[in-house]
């Protein structure tokens, strides 16, 4: 079953086309990743899907309901973790959760039970009487994720949920998201953390300048755009030009990333045949980050 569907979705801010004709289908129980450089339009897309921002063009369905006409019903089953912290600074940690639960019409006793449960989960229970401004940045983010769980959502939409978290807290969130997925909760996860996307997402869309550049399982994206291994060489400028010429004449697939050259889709024996000084090269497994650079890197440097 398709849980989130967008068709020709477009968002303009004046002359800026933030989201450009995006059509997506996210399946039930799937964790769908959204990657892309700053300003790619990820947040704009997510805000439209969560019904807080109107689209300029195109349509959105969530759980078979047209978002335009059923926004209340849809929002009732969504768990949203926004990129920008909008915790209520007039309330304490616990009051934040209780008040949020009330927006969802969750009865008091149940709201209290769930609030304590998520506070325990994210190790915030001893902070439940604190004001928001007394929390550290990472604690706020944990509370923001906790708040997104308060209505036991069927669909979670998370915009960079682990940014600023320490490794323990980050694993805590990953663990919870994995557990929710096993319970059938669909997830739309926007992240700048490639490791997070590889670890959690079944499919990943790479977004750039408002468009989806590519969409597939992380492993498939890696093998399609960069192959299984990447050779990485760091060279000074004279050697560099010579090497680039050599790589080009051998028809090899490579990318210049800063002062390094990344070589893709290459068999180990192709490199030993005098193309470059392979003793300066390093062989490593390909990652999603390489795909990210391939698809969005060049135009960033422009």
């Amino acid at each position: 079953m398709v849980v989130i569907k967008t068709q020709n979705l477009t968002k303009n801010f004046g002359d800026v086309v933030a989201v450009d004709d995006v059509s997506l289908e996210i399946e039930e129980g799937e964790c769908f990743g959204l990657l892309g450089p700053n300003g790619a339009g990820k947040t704009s897309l997510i805000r439209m899907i969560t019904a807080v921002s109107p689209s300029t063009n195109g349509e959105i369905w969530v759980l078979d309901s047209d978002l335009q006409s059923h926004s209340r019903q849809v929002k009732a089953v969504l768990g949203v973790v926004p990129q920008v912290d909008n915790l209520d600074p007039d309330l304490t940690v616990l009051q934040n959760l209780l008040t949020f639960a009330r927006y969802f019409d969750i009865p008091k006793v149940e709201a209290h039970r769930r609030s304590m449960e998520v506070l325990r989960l994210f190790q915030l229970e001893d902070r439940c009487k604190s004001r928001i401004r007394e929390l550290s940045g990472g604690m706020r983010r944990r509370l923001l994720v906790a708040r997104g769980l308060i209505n036991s959502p069927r669909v979670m939409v998370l915009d960079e949920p682990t940014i600023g978290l320490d490794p323990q807290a980050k694993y805590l969130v990953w663990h919870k998201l994995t557990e929710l997925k096993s319970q059938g909760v669909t997830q739309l996860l926007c992240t700048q953390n490639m490791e997070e996307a590889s670890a959690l997402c079944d499919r990943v869309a790479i977004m750039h300048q408002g468009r989806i550049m590519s969409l597939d399982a992380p492993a498939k994206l890696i093998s399609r755009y960069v192959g299984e291994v990447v050779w990485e060489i760091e060279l000074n400028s004279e050697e560099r030009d010579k090497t680039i010429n050599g790589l080009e004449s051998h028809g090899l697939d490579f990318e210049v990333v800063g002062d390094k050259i990344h070589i893709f889709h290459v068999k180990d024996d192709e490199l030993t045949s005098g193309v470059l000084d392979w003793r300066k090269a390093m062989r490593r497994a390909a990652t999603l980050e390489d795909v990210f650079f391939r698809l969005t890197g060049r135009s960033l440097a422009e």
Partner: protein
Amino acid sequence: MRLFSWRFIRVWQRNRDVFFGLWHAEAPGFLAEPIIILLAMGLGLGAYVGLVDGQRYIEFIVPGLIAGYAMFSANFECTYGSFFRMEYQKTFDAIIATPLNIEDVTAGEIFWGATRSVLTGSVMLAVAAAFQLVHSPWALLIPIICFLEGILFSAIALFFTSVVPSIYSFNYYYSLFITPMFFFSGVFFPLSSFPEIVQTLSWAVPLTPVVYITRAVIGGEFQPGLLGALALIVALTVLFFSMSLVTMRRRLAT
């Protein structure tokens, strides 16, 4: 224009919890202000001003002060208060990601502003009654009048809040609209002391009908003008409430 639903009550509850959570901080000012105002105005100014229409001056200004301060409460709540929640705290952004819509937030803010008017008006009424300045049982209608008044001024204030670029714009709102209104609505002296033309114009400011009604119930004297005043309040309320529903959506749905 889209309408709000009963869910607005959730926004009202949120504001109520915050207000009463800070009650210990707000209470002294809340109670002291009407007492100070009544004493200063009644004893200080009243010593210089003689009888107005056969009343002591302090008795004359009580209805106007109640209506005026109730108006200020609604205004502060829905200008600075709402603007803070909207722009600095992003409270509304968080709320509209739940089953509540922008219209529910708008109505919740307006009804909360009206509640502040009721609280202020009631406290002032109680203080005035304690000074034996209230003589008619009809004065028990004051909370209801303050509620209507509060909806009206909250709607006007929130409409303004939804279109201003920055918090500094409220300086214009208060110095060019609210403060002059306070003086041209019959709070401090009878409208009949103005020239004819000013008297007519003063009915164009929304506080005038409120002061008129408040004065009538506190004095227990009813004139045929009451229904007209009430109709004016209702009409202005419908107008500004509707406009703020539209402009708040325009502001928040980006």
